[in-house]
């Protein structure tokens, strides 16, 4: 075929909008709660009003007799334990409740109103027990033990180390060098404690899930999960159903931030439908239960001791992290591991003793939250770095630049850092200095009652996926030559599917308009993707997708070679066309090739093009007990952030003026979308650090389980945002990209803390930093 050469193709650099943008802007995008059907029953959950209590009895007789009620479930119905690391959590409490908000009973009724009325008629007789609300309380002698059966629980993985007879869920110890000797030679030693309360993900979409079972035992689940394949496998494990008989579908997810990675409501939905003969049942939570009952962000108590030379070169660190993981383990042991393996922050410290411990308390259980613990320990480490700078009489930027981890250094888990696996933190700091006008001064008196101050913080994050995490991609083609992308990656706001589609368009050298992505995920149709978590999807699925693209391209080349009467090596691909290298005007459009080629004489050539690619992580190893030596992650992402505030020194109120980020993202992929994602994280970090916390009353019940009392940042409170980038390729990743989607949050709480500590000239070592907290830090009391 001879024709005109037209160039229409998308590159990774293009600032394209989200591929699903119009669906969302018009309200057509369907989320789990939008997919109600008239035949579905509604399940509501009764929750514990006590932080810790024995359940003496549950009387459901009156409730069961109420109009519309189809079934009532309690912990006796399915006496199972669930958990992805430690099987310690009954989906419905049995004999015991361990946090206020824990699910105790489920009512299934014809509609929500009837279910609600019946809930109120259930009588539960509780015998309250002593409770522990912080790691210190839970580790103290004589503390109530939450799980007497800890020694008998089944461990779903090998690298968790519960300590029966205590509230210790798991512990990871890092030992590098000789801290005792190193500290004895340090000219400067700084020691502080830090406290971070639990808080919530607060995705705008409240969690919901629906399940049904057909006559032949097929289980269908629709849910707002980040991990449909884990839902499938957990239901299979918990209820002894063949995995393939469980089909999990996930439409658009309305925000998740880690909070929709654990399997929670899906288990209740399965139990409920099973109890009513397989009829479809939807579990509906009000916002209050979504906050108090469903898993939240961890709390943290930390102790950091840093030793340095008098010119600020770090020599040694002793660090203790006690994670408040709440009443059940969920993924907290792995967050603990991540904190141990990265808990120094991005600094070169040759002598390290770091103990990270996850502790059961009578709080709502914690799960992954944007940052996977890094946003929490970095607050502590980066506050400590500022305190050390102050002790040494050094500039906070200078001390960070001097100690920044560089290629050739050993990480806390003794992995040798390279430019590829680490990135370039000094360059991020250099760019941050320019972007923040650091040389203006840290603290400036504006007038009689106003000061302006800046705080900086470095960030790094390495994920710790299971060493056998997998992903896959299947490409099929349409008659117009456009491609259909099938993967297991969830669209929940993080934009992975757009950037993956963009990478594919670049690779196939076609316009993004020719890339059609299956937005919802169906475990029966889409290849398994470990989970859409850890900012890892563009790497994990990206490798698989690029392999699928190579596979498809090689088939296209082979068909084109036959059609063009040349060798496959002589075929070039561009603008969704295959042409002869010697003559670009002699080409075939993809649409003539992707379903095989039919020559003018009717001869058929080739077969339909089907691209497939899979990827399993390689080369990771668990942490060695005792030293913590091991490789948990393919790579880090590094960066540096700044927050500038203006504080009223009389009433301690403050405004956040500017927030800046410089991050090494490896490759310039759609920088507009990348900037938006990073600033979203910054905004969440500012909200978290300035106002968010679950406030518990004396009985251990949260007083802030709704958006009226648990305040988020709103429009008008946002600062001016600035973002800049460094590009150090991660060599094993597509296009050299690095993970970044969570990372905007990471250094922000610390940078805000550093700015406010400078403004007030006090050490602010707790979150959230409200005006009241500042007043108290300045010596105010009631």
């Amino acid at each position, binding site marked *: 075929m001879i024709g005109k050469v037209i160039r229409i193709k998308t590159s990774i650099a293009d600032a394209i909008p989200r591929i699903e943008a119009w669906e969302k802007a018009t309200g057509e995008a369907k989320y789990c709660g939008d997919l109600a059907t008239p035949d579905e029953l509604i399940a509501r959950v009764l929750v514990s009003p006590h932080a810790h209590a024995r359940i003496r009895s549950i009387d459901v007789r009156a409730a069961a007799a109420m109009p519309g009620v189809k079934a009532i479930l309690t912990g006796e119905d399915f006496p199972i334990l669930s958990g992805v690391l430690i099987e310690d959590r009954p989906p419905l409490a049995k004999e015991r409740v361990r946090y206020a908000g824990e699910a105790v009973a489920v009512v299934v009724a014809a509609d929500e109103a009837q279910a609600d009325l019946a809930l109120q008629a259930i009588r539960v007789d509780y015998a309250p027990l002593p409770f522990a609300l912080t790691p210190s309380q839970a580790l103290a002698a004589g503390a109530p033990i939450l799980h007497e059966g800890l020694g008998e629980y089944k461990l779903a993985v090998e690298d968790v180390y519960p300590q029966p007879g205590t509230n210790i869920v798991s512990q990871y110890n890092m030992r590098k060098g000789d801290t005792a000797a190193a500290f004895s030679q340090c000219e400067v030693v700084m020691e502080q404690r830090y406290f971070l309360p639990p808080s919530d993900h607060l995705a705008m979409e409240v969690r919901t899930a629906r399940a049904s079972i057909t006559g032949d035992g097929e289980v269908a689940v629709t849910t707002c999960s980040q991990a449909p394949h884990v839902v499938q496998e957990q239901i299979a494990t918990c209820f002894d159903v063949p995995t393939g008989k469980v089909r999990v579908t996930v439409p658009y997810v309305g925000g998740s931030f880690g909070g929709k990675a654990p399997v929670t409501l899906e288990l209740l939905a399965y139990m409920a439908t099973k109890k009513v003969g397989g009829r479809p049942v939807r579990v509906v939570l009000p916002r209050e239960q979504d906050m108090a009952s469903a898993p939240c962000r961890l709390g943290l108590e930390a102790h950091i001791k840093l030793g340095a030379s008098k010119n600020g070169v770090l020599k040694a660190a002793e660090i203790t992290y006690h994670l408040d993981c709440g009443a059940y383990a969920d993924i907290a042991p792995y967050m603990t591991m991540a904190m141990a393996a990265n808990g120094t922050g991005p600094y070169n410290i040759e002598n390290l003793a770091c103990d990270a411990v996850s502790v059961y308390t009578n709080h709502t259980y914690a799960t992954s939250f944007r940052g996977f613990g890094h946003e929490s320990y970095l607050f502590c480490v980066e506050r400590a770095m500022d305190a050390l700078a102050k002790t040494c009489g050094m500039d906070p930027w200078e001390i960070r630049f001097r100690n920044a981890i560089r290629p050739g250094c050993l990480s806390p888990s003794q992995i040798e850092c390279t430019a590829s696996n680490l990135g370039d933190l000094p360059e991020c700091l250099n760019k941050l200095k320019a972007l923040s006008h650091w040389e203006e001064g840290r603290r400036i008196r504006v007038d009689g009652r106003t000061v302006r101050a800046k705080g900086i913080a470095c960030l790094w994050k390495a994920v710790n996926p299971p060493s056998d995490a997998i992903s896959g991609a299947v490409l099929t083609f349409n008659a117009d030559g456009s491609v259909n992308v099938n993967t297991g990656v969830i669209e929940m706001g993080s934009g992975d599917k757009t950037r993956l589609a963009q990478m594919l368009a670049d690779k196939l050298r076609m316009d993004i308009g020719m890339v059609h992505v299956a937005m919802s995920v169906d475990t029966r149709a889409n290849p398994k993707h470990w989970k859409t978590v850890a900012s890892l999807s563009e790497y994990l699925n990206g490798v698989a997708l690029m392999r699928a693209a190579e596979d498809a391209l090689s088939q296209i080349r082979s068909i084109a070679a036959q059609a063009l009467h040349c060798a496959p090596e002589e075929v070039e691909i561009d603008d969704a066309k295959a042409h002869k290298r010697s003559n670009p005007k002699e080409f075939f459009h993809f649409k003539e090739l992707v379903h095989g080629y039919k020559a003018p004489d009717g001869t058929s050539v080739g077969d339909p093009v089907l691209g497939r690619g899979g990827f399993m992580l390689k080369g990771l190893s668990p942490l060695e007990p005792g030293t913590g030596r091991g490789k948990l992650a393919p790579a880090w992402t590094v960066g540096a952030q700044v927050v500038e505030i203006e504080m009223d020194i009389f009433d301690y109120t403050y405004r956040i003026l500017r927030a800046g980020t410089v991050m090494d993202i490896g490759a310039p992929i759609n920088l507009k979308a990348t900037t938006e994602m990073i600033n979203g994280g910054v905004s969440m970090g500012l909200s978290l650090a300035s106002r968010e916390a679950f406030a518990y009353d004396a009985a251990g019940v949260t007083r802030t389980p709704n*958006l009226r009392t648990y305040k988020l940042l*709103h429009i*008008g409170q946002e600062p001016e945002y600035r973002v800049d980038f460094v590009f150090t390729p991660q060599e094993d990743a597509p296009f050299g990209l690095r993970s970044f989607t969570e990372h905007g949050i990471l250094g922000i709480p610390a940078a805000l803390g550093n700015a406010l500590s400078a403004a007030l000239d006090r050490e602010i070592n707790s979150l959230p930093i409200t005006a009241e907290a500042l007043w108290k830090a300045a010596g105010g009391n009631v």
Partner: protein
Amino acid sequence: MRRIEGKAIIELRVNGEARTVAVRPSDLLLDVLRNQLGLTGAKPGCKNGDCGACTVLMDGWPVKSCLVLAVEAEGHELLTVEGLEGKSPVQAAFVGHGAFQCGYCTPGFVMVCHAMLTHHPGAEELVMEEWLQSNLCRCTSYSEIRDAVRAVANAGKRE
């Protein structure tokens, strides 16, 4: 005043059409729009008037449809995000400025912005802040929403 017991048949004017629904006195407009009319653009986010994800317009003014009873909406013109048919300049601006990520709060934000720019075509920053404080977004940094609205408002000033 009408007295309703049990379920009553009422007529709602939604997106320019007359729609008949059977409601209890306590049924929320939000639930009726979603469950009976299939208009799932308005989202439940708190059912407490705190988040704004369920915002629709009543006679051109934004209301949180979780704080309005369906029976109260009788006799009023309702406009939901579906009724904009993708034609509001706010929607194009939201797409172009990356004013959403997960998209769950978007229909609510779009409706508030659309109403504000109808009443204040060239809205200044403070007007925007006052109007848009009614809604929460957890994904974006808000600056993208502000940029989108500002772009439409600036176009309004030029007219």
